C-alpha cells in the first residue's frame, strides 16, 4: 500500500523536489548571466560608467583588436596571450592533478573497506580550511626565506634561494593543491565500481600488472578520469584567488583580468565580454571533448 500511495502524485512530488534548485539557479544565475550578457554589448562612458541603452560591439572587438593612433584597427594579441597562458596553466594543473590523483585513488580503492571512508575524509581535509589561509600557507612555504628554500640551503643543495613564489610554478602548485580532491574523488568513485574479478581474469589471461592497468583498469576508470579532469580544468581556467596571491604581476590570468575590468579598470562591458568569451570557449571545448569521448566509447573496433 505504501508504494501505491508513494506512486500517487509522484510526478508533482518530483517537481517539488527539484523546484528549489530551479528557483535558485533561475533567479541567482540565469538572471545575472542575462544581465552580464546585456552589459557586454553596451558602451562604456568616458568615466567608466555603463551607458545603458547604447549598444556597441566594441567590448568584443577590443579582445583581439585595438584602435591605433591613426584611427584604424590593429591586431592586439595581449589578451589572447592571457587566454593562452590561462589555458596552458589549467591544462598543466589538470595533468599534474591527474598524475598525482590517479595513483592516490587507486591506492584508496585497494585498501580494506573500513579504511576507505577515513581516506576519503582525509582527501577532503583541505576543504576544511579557508582558501585564503591555504594560499598564504603556500606563500610561507615557497617564498625566498620560506621553508623549502631554507631546507634546500640547509641540505647544501643550493647556495642561494631559488625563486619559487610569484611564478607560473607556484600558481600551478597552488591550483593543483586546491583542486586535487576534485580529481581524486570522481576517479575513486569509478575505480571502486570496477569488479575486481575482471583484474583477476586479466591476470589469468597472461596480462602483466602494467597491462592490467592499461587494458582493464584505465578504460573502466575513464568516466571518472574525464569528470575529474573537467572538474579541475574548468575552475582552474577561471581561478582568481590563487593566481592573485601566488602569481606575480607578470602572470596575469583571465580570472584576474576580468576582475580588473570590474574593479580598477572600471570597464564593465569589456569584463563581461571577456567572461562570455571564456564561457563560450569552455563550452565548445567540453562539447568537442565529450563528443569524441562518446564516439570513442561506441566504436566497435
Amino acid at each position: 500500500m505504501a508504494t501505491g500511495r508513494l506512486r500517487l502524485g509522484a510526478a508533482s512530488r518530483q517537481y517539488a523536489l527539484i523546484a528549489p534548485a530551479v528557483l535558485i539557479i533561475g533567479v541567482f544565475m540565469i538572471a545575472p548571466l542575462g544581465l552580464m550578457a546585456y552589459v557586454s554589448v553596451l558602451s562604456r562612458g568616458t568615466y567608466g560608467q555603463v551607458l545603458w541603452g547604447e549598444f556597441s560591439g566594441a567590448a568584443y572587438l577590443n579582445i583581439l583588436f585595438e584602435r591605433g593612433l591613426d584611427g584604424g584597427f590593429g591586431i592586439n594579441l595581449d589578451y589572447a596571450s592571457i587566454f593562452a597562458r590561462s589555458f596552458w596553466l589549467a591544462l598543466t594543473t589538470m595533468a599534474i592533478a591527474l598524475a598525482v590523483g590517479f595513483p592516490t585513488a587507486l591506492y584508496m580503492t585497494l585498501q580494506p573497506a573500513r579504511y576507505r571512508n577515513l581516506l576519503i575524509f582525509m582527501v577532503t581535509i583541505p576543504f576544511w580550511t579557508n582558501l585564503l589561509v591555504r594560499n598564504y600557507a603556500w606563500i610561507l612555504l615557497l617564498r625566498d626565506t620560506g621553508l623549502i628554500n631554507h631546507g634546500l640551503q640547509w641540505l647544501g643543495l643550493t647556495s642561494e634561494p631559488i625563486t619559487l613564489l610569484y611564478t607560473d610554478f607556484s600558481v600551478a602548485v597552488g591550483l593543483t593543491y586546491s583542486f586535487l580532491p576534485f580529481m581524486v574523488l570522481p576517479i575513486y568513485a569509478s575505480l571502486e565500481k570496477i569488479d575486481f574479478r575482471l583484474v583477476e581474469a586479466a591476470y589469468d589471461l597472461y596480462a602483466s600488472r602494467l597491462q592490467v592497468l592499461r587494458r582493464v583498469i584505465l578504460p573502466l576508470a575513464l568516466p571518472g578520469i574525464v569528470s575529474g579532469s573537467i572538474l579541475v580544468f574548468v575552475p582552474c581556467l577561471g581561478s582568481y584567488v590563487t593566481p592573485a596571491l601566488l602569481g606575480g604581476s607578470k602572470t596575469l590570468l583571465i580570472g584576474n583580468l576580468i576582475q580588473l575590468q570590474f574593479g580598477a579598470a572600471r570597464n564593465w562591458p569589456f569584463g563581461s565580454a571577456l567572461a562570455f568569451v571564456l564561457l563560450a570557449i569552455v563550452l565548445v571545448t567540453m562539447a568537442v571533448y565529450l563528443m569524441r569521448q562518446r564516439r570513442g566509447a561506441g566504436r566497435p573496433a
Partner: protein
Amino acid sequence: MSTTPGIAIRNISKVFGSGADEVRALDDVSLDIRGNEFFTLLGPSGCGKTTLLRLIAGFEQPSAGEILLDGAAIAHLPPFRRPVNTVFQSYALSPHMTVAQNIAFGLEMQRMERERAEARVAEMLTLVQLGGLESRRPAQLSGGQQQRVALARALANHPKVLLLDEPLSALDLKLRKEMQIELKRLQLESGVTFVFVTHDQEEALTMSDRVAVMSSGHVLQIGAPTDIYEHPRHRFVADFIGDINLLEATAGAPANGAVPFRLSGAQTLRGDAASAPPVGPVRLAIRPERAGLEPAGREGLAGAVDSIVYIGADTVYRIALDEGAGLFMVRVQNRTGARSTYAVGDAVTVVVPPEAIRVLSD
C-alpha cells in the same frame, strides 16, 4: 589417459587471517588430478573447494604445501605465468571489449601474431557455437551466451588445465542441463584437463570422470561418480550426495553369509557378510531407490506410510518404522502411472536387499 598426474596437490594448507580471526580454509589436502580428466571438487559453500581452485590458478598462495603441474612446482608463479586458465563464476568478461576482443585478450597478451589470433578466435566461436556475435558486447548477450564467451576466452589459450568455478550456477535449469552436456563435449574435444568446482551434486555426477567430495577444508572421498554415489564411506558424503536413509544399528556376528543389523527397536535387517563390519554399533546408509515396498507381514522392516510425494517419474514414500526406529524413505518408479499402490496410514513392509546396505566408516 596419461600416467603422470596432470596436477598434484601435496599437503596443501591455506589459512586466512590470523589470531582469533584465523580461518583454516584447507587443511593438509593432497590429491592427484590426471591429465585429460574431468575432475570435480564437490562440497557445500565454505568447504574450501573454491580456495583450492584459486590456489591452482595462482590468485592465492598456499600457507603450506606444494602444487605440481606435470611434475613442476607452480605455487610460486603469478597467475599470468601459469599454463592454466579460469572460467569465473560471474564470467568476468570485460564490459568495454567485444566478444572477439575478450576471446583474443589472452592471445594478445601472449603476443600471438594477429592473423593466427584471429583464426583462433574464429575457431573458438565455432566451438562454442557463437558465430556471428563477435562484435557484440557482453552486456548485449544472454547469460548462457556470456558463459560460452568465458569458456572460449579461456580455451583459446590452449591451457593445460581449465579451472571452472561454479560456472553454471547463474543459469536457469534448462540451460544448465544443456551446458552440462556442452561442457563434457568441449572437454572431450579439447582434451584439456577440466577442474570443476560445484556445490551441485547432480552436476558433479553427470559430468565428471572423478569427484572429490570436500567438507570443512578436508577431502573426504575421491572416486568415480558411481563409486561416490553407491559406496559412500563417510556419513557426510552419503548425506550430501542424493537422498539417503541413515540408520543407527548394532551389528551382530555373521552367520550363514549374512550379518544381522539390529535397529534401535527390535527390528533386524539382513546385511551382506562381505561388508564384514566389526560386531557393535554401526551406521548404515541405504539409498531410497534400492529399497522396495511390500504389503504388511513380509520379511523386512515393518512400518506405516507417513507421507507420499509424487515427483513425476518416481513416488517417494516416507515410512514410519514400527517401534520408533525412525522414518525410512523408499523411492518407487511409477511404472503404472500416477496411481499409488498404498495410501497414507497403510501398514507396509520395507524390503532392503542385503547388497543395498552400506556400512559407513564414521
